[in-house]
């Protein structure tokens, strides 16, 4: 159908194509300056908290806890990016989280035990899959009303916010459902839901290899077509920065050690005699953090390398143009809401596993944190603009603010005031930046 001639020689045969300049390198490397800006903001916040809290913020223990707390909002924020990019919004995620959390809790605590008995090895996966599917179905239902009936997403999901909250209460008449299946609990990253120091290093090395592979592959692609290449020093720098960041974070987090009780348990299990001064056993990455990491990569892949993602952006940029290009916008919108719902299901699993219980008040105000994370991460409410890594950083930034303030004993009302102000400042800076770069 196309006339692509892939065997054609490069534009300047024989000679190396000219190198890219530094600014173009930043651009070509897809390190947009605003993502760099966010990293700087994050660093500033961390250092400020560290100083103000008398050196308790940038500790392995605090950062490890922070990563566990940020995971569920990060998971949902990646889906919210696509919803907002497609010129929609989902206000129902908090209430939907309660419904799905409640459903998963009922499945594992009250339904499955009748058939499988307690703590059957299949229970956790059945409950998890059921929850994700239920979330996707609720999302698809709302998406269908938006896409086919044409009711604005704001209204549909505002209705959802009220309806699902009520449904969550009604599902168990306001009871608390507990406890969770013991395998399911690992999803929350509780005392046993971590992968240990060694496996964490493995994850770090895999990330490092992945970064290098991406760089090599992208260079090979550009070479194949004779495009201009990044200078070699830039490639190496990028690779080194990526690996140092990945391995550095792992090394830092690995210095969070299991509390004494669990460490003793560990020593017993591995038949290590308990030493005098105690035993330092790295907890390693928590399961929810791994999930968030995996989801972030999967969603980045989906948005940048698959047709679906490209269509979401095209619809957000110009819905009419997308239709004229033959894109099925309605189906794309439904998929986007379903994806959001599925991610809500996953986040709900993480939350009830961590709480080891489900209550109908689960996820209250979560929609606002999720939207704020996406928006702080550079997602434009006008649609068409936003990135997954940005939203994940946004979630990290929000969680850092909250943890930092908790550490400094700032009271809850004040925390809200600060988060609110930061949200407005972030969007203001973004707007100014965009206007100038136009």
């Amino acid at each position, binding site marked *: 159908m196309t006339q692509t001639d892939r065997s054609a020689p490069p534009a300047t045969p024989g000679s190396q194509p000219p190198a890219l300049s530094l600014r173009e390198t930043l651009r070509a490397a897809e390190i947009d300056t605003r993502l760099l800006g966010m990293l700087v903001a994050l660093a500033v916040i961390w250092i400020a908290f560290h100083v103000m809290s008398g050196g308790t913020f940038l500790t392995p223990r605090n950062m490890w806890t922070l990563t566990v707390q940020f995971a569920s909002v990060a998971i949902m924020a990646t889906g919210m990016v696509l919803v907002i990019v497609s010129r929609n919004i989902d206000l129902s995620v908090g209430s939907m989280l309660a419904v799905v959390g409640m459903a998963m809790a009922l499945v594992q605590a009250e339904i499955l035990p009748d058939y499988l008995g307690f703590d059957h090895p299949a229970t956790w996966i059945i409950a998890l899959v059921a929850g994700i599917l239920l979330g996707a179905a609720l999302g698809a239902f709302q998406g269908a009303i938006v896409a086919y009936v044409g009711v604005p997403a704001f209204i549909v999901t505002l209705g959802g916010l009220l309806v699902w909250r009520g449904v969550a209460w009604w599902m168990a008449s306001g009871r608390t459902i507990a406890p969770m299946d013991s395998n399911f609990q690992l999803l929350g990253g509780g005392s046993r839901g971590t992968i240990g120091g060694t496996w964490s290093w493995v994850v770090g090395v895999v990330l490092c290899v992945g970064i290098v592979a991406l760089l090599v592959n992208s260079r090979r*692609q550009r070479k194949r077509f004779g*495009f201009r290449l990044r200078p070699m020093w830039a490639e190496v720098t990028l690779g080194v920065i990526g690996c140092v960041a990945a391995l550095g974070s792992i090394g830092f987090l690995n210095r969070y050690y299991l509390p004494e009780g669990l460490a003793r348990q560990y020593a017993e299990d591995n038949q290590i005699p308990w030493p005098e001064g105690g035993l330092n056993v790295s907890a390693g990455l928590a399961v929810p953090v791994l999930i968030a990491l995996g989801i972030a990569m999967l969603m980045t892949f989906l948005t940048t390398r698959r047709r679906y993602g*490209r269509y979401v952006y095209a619809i957000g940029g*110009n819905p009419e143009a997308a*239709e004229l290009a*033959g894109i099925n916008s309605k189906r794309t919108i439904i998929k986007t809401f379903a994806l959001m719902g599925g991610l809500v299901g996953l986040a709900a699993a993480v939350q009830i596993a961590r709480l080891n219980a489900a209550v109908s008040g689960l996820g209250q105000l979560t929609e606002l944190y999720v939207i704020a994370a996406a928006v702080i991460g550079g997602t434009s409410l006008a649609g068409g603009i936003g990135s997954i890594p940005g939203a994940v950083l946004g979630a990290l930034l929000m969680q850092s603010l909250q943890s930092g303030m908790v550490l400094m004993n700032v009271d809850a009302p004040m925390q809200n005031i600060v988060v609110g102000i930061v949200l407005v400042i972030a969007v203001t800076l973004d707007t100014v930046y965009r206007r100038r770069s*136009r």
Partner: protein
Amino acid sequence: MADETSTVRPPLVELRDMHVAFGGVKAVDGVTVDLFPGEVVALVGGNGAGKTTLIKSLSGAHPADAGQILIEGQPVTIHTPRDAKSLGVETIYQTLALADNVDAPSNVFLGRELTTRWGNLDSSAMEDATRKLMARLNPKFENFIVPVQSLSGGQRQSVAIARAVHFNARVLIMDEPTAALGPAETEQVRELIRQLQREGLGIFLISHDIHDVFDLADRISVMLQGKLVGTVNKDDVTVDEVLAMIILGKRPGEVTIEDIAELH
């Protein structure tokens, strides 16, 4: 109204008795036009005459309420842009219809992305194809990795044109393709139209520029208030006669000396 000799073969495209209404407004009211391979038919008329609405029924952007579309003599149904494209009908819209937030290659291939074996987007292949295409259409075009909203009007137009010509169209619809262009770029587009015509494409050209029309078109179809005033061979008419059709709705022969005087 076409050359008697060329009716031996059925026209490449025939729009018969097309009707499109928006509420009470009859935007297209019983219009019949046709187009032969290797021919440029200009569609002209004042603002709101219904030109865009007529061609949208062929491009699938807005299906007609009534009427028949024939391609190479065969009746076809066109409900969506996809239908039109699969019949080899490509369109450059007046609004360009670009996704402003993505880059030129993404726009050129929007809806028809090149993918790898695994179904992943093959961005490099798309960029490469776009570069080759642009080398032909607009050699000065260099911004392949920035969102098209930051491009000039002429560059954006080049992207829209590239998208239409890349996919081996048989029929090309161009709605004001030179409206946003400077003189040099306009000349490039004119040359491109001539080249595509030589390659045997049929082209519907909508233009307000009467010089464009007389320079490029073989036949001229004139619309006024949703109705077809008439179709004439370019060689048989003068600019004044066409202007009289556009403004007064009078066919050559019906025009009086006073009418012509009024036009000037």
